[in-house]
């Protein structure tokens, strides 16, 4: 428990990905089996208990501490588990005699412990642990453990230890169970690669490079295929003898949030792995990303959400059919297989992604810029003979996004960044002008923290410091004197923002020191132009 608690504490305070990775590698190399397997399960979000309720923690704490002192302490600390962890005073004899429980011991015990016995066991454990382990234990036992590392990062750490690609771990991952003995044996060279056989495992997807600094004139249009790039989320649909899954492109299983898609897969009963775009589609019309966002935010959707925001899939590719691995085949052949599979089953909720006919890239560019409909981000170019390669190889697939939209907005607030940027004001809230009761005022429409060079960041940081009018903790309010040209992919109405609008992927395109703040755009013009 101590090693795990130490890891948790370090991860919670470490913003840097590389440092998290180093901490994870150190832990996985050092911690014993099966403790490290359960730690991995915690990162994958599959380790959760509801063995104790807050009231039980409080009651336990009261056995050792005066209620008033507890109340003042809780008021100061603000978190029940942390308060109990810090305030708990071990009875001196037991503290000496008993060793702190290992993570696996805790997990195994909780798995079969009758509810009535929880307080006694918990009291014994708390006595044997130090404050940091008590905190981890209490978070675990109340089902509120948060690990500052994603499953993907943990898999990357394991892959680096084993000198394999993270995708090699992904390919077997979903056939495995905690505490992952076979996985650790394999990465340490003590056992064979686990066999995923009939399990609905995730296959690493093929991703496209952005089409930048590429000479299209050198491309032969006959060798390329074009498709719309949809603004949904990329998913992989898997149907295998042991079940069906809906994965995001980062291997997150989102089937629970999309029972409509899962049910479709079950009804089809066809053993396939499909690559597509998940969208909200109403009466054959693709809805905005905001609608999809609402579905994504819900772990399990209500009946009315399923009715009003039905999920649909644009199919891009087929990776497996009846156990046959189609990935080595050229794109054109896979497309034929996809089309004939589609024609045979006529699956509900699904449509084929259109192949766009074009003679040359100039025509295609015009088509790209004219497409302003909801849900289209731009075009995909795929080489006709490209096999399906995991990762983001340069050459076979390109994403050709529309030119971004832009607006000139005024900086209103700035906040310090994290990690390497902790000494810089690098997050900017910007706003547009509007007139209320004959008074002109700025109303915030979004926040940007990317798009600038290091030199520009230095300039922005200095400007913020020199023009601060108020400070609220890490946030500074500034004089309305700096215009930023903000690039964004789409605008939408939003009830959560005071301005009533929100931007998709806003970033700083240019610093407009040449433009007076009074001449920045108005909210009215913005709505007129983009909504």
């Amino acid at each position: 428990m101590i090693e795990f608690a130490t890891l948790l504490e370090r991860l919670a305070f470490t913003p840097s990905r590389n440092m998290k990775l180093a901490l994870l590698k150190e832990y996985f190399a050092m911690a014993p089996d099966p403790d490290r397997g359960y730690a991995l399960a915690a990162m994958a979000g599959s380790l959760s208990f509801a063995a104790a309720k807050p009231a039980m923690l409080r009651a336990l704490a009261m056995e050792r501490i005066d209620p008033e002192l507890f109340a003042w302490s809780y008021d100061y600390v603000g978190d029940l588990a942390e308060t109990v962890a810090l305030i708990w005073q071990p009875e001196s004899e037991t503290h000496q005699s008993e060793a702190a429980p290992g993570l696996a011991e805790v997990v195994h015990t909780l798995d079969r412990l009758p509810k009535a016995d929880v307080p006694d066991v918990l009291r014994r454990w708390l006595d044997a642990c130090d404050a940091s382990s008590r905190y981890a234990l209490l978070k675990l036992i109340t089902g509120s453990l948060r690990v500052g590392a994603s499953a993907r990062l943990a898999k990357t750490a394991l892959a680096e230890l084993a000198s394999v690609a993270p995708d090699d771990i992904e390919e077997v991952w979903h056939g495995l169970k905690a505490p992952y003995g076979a996985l650790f044996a394999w990465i340490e060279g003590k056992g064979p690669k686990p066999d995923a056989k009939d399990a609905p495992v995730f296959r690493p997807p093929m991703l496209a490079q952005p089409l930048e600094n590429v000479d299209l004139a050198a491309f032969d249009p006959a060798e390329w295929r074009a498709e719309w790039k949809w603004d949904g989320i990329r998913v992989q649909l898997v149907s295998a003898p042991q079940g069906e899954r809906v994965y995001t492109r980062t291997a997150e299983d989102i089937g629970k949030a999309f029972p409509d898609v899962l049910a479709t897969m079950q009804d089809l009963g066809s053993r396939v792995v499909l690559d597509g775009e998940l969208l909200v589609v109403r009466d054959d019309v693709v809805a905005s990303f905001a609608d999809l966002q609402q579905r994504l935010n819900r772990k399990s959707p209500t009946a009315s959400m399923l009715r009003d925001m039905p999920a649909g899939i644009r199919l891009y590719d087929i990776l497996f059919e009846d156990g046959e691995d189609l990935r080595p085949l050229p794109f054109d052949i896979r497309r034929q297989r996809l089309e004939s599979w589609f024609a045979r089953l006529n699956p509900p909720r699904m449509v084929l992604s259109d192949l766009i006919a074009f003679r040359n890239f100039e025509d295609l560019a015009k088509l790209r810029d004219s497409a302003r409909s909801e849900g289209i981000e731009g075009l995909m170019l795929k080489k006709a003979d490209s096999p399906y390669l995991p990762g983001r190889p340069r050459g076979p697939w390109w994403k050709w996004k529309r030119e971004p939209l832009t607006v000139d907005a005024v900086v209103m607030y700035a906040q310090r960044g994290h990690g390497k940027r902790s000494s810089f004001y690098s997050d900017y809230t910007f706003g547009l002008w509007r007139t209320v009761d004959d008074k002109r005022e700025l109303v915030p429409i979004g926040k940007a923290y990317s798009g600038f060079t290091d030199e520009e960041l230095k300039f922005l940081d200095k400007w913020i410091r020199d023009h601060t009018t108020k400070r609220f903790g890490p946030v500074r309010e500034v004089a309305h004197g700096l215009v930023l040209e903000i690039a964004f992919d789409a605008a939408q109405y939003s009830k959560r923002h005071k301005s009533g609008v929100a931007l998709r992927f806003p970033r700083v395109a240019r610093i407009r020191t040449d433009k007076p703040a009074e001449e920045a755009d108005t909210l009215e013009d913005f709505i007129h132009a983009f909504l």
Partner: protein
Amino acid sequence: MDWLELKPEGLFCVPGEFYIDPLQPVAHAVITHGHSDHARPGHQHVTATPETLSIMRLRMGEDRAGENQQALEYGEVISVGAVRLWLAPAGHVLGSAQIVMEYQGQRAVVSGDYKRAPDPTCTPFEVVPCDLFVTEATFGLPVFRLPDPAHEIGKLLHDVRLFPERTHVVGCYALGKCQRLIALLRNAGYHEPLWLHGALLPMCSLYEGFGIQLGELKSATAAKKGEMRGGIVLAPPSAIADRWARRLPDPVVCLASGWMHVRQRAKARGVELPMVISDHADWDALLDTCQATGAKEIWVTHGREEALIHALGKLGIRGRALRLIGYEEDDEQAEEDAVA
């Protein structure tokens, strides 16, 4: 006890006609220790340990550290008016003292800031039996049971080994914490040169002048950027995540303070490696000390006094909150003013 009074200037000893750690310039001040919220400039007559007087002269300049400076060694007894007065070690920082006063058969002790944990850079706290004990309560909540500082130093050294390509910058205030950290690092076997922010160096020299060995110290402000990679840098808390820190190669921000014991406080400061090291008494030390003095009455100057007074009451000891304004809840803010 009716011969100690609370006045706007601070705590006043009536029969001795002196103030203890007054907030405004007075005729006669007895000073517990050199932190700038306790030792203020402009008094006429100042009584303190030789170390504290030396610290005051360094920080305020010769002319503002008291027109008449009276050095008093620990245990050396003098009479001030009708009061017998001496100083006892408080274990807070170099030269820190408890003020012991006797008058008409009663003894009162004003402890200033103090700690009970061992500190290689100052004389350990001495329990002086008394009738009235005046205590701080900076960490006056039972959640503050602070860990062994050696454990926290171990965390830092482990991290330095794990990330040799980065620079660990530890926020600590200039008087006390800085030198204690250095001594703890040396005791843990770390003998590399330490890189110091310019505001910390003069106080380290002063400590060395009193015979406290700190090993090799170098100026971080004058260093070339690459030189400090993999090393440990000490700087005032205000500098660690601000522009000054940009000279450091790939810094890991650490902060040594008792407040780091609570996660939200550490998070709010943007700290990557919190180190729970405090120069104040923790909860257990506060209760133990108040009991050990045998005092029937405890006055609490500043901090979280309600919880401490409540707990003392359960032990049959009467507590009173003085709520002195002007002493910072951490020395940090006061110290930042001092180095600014």
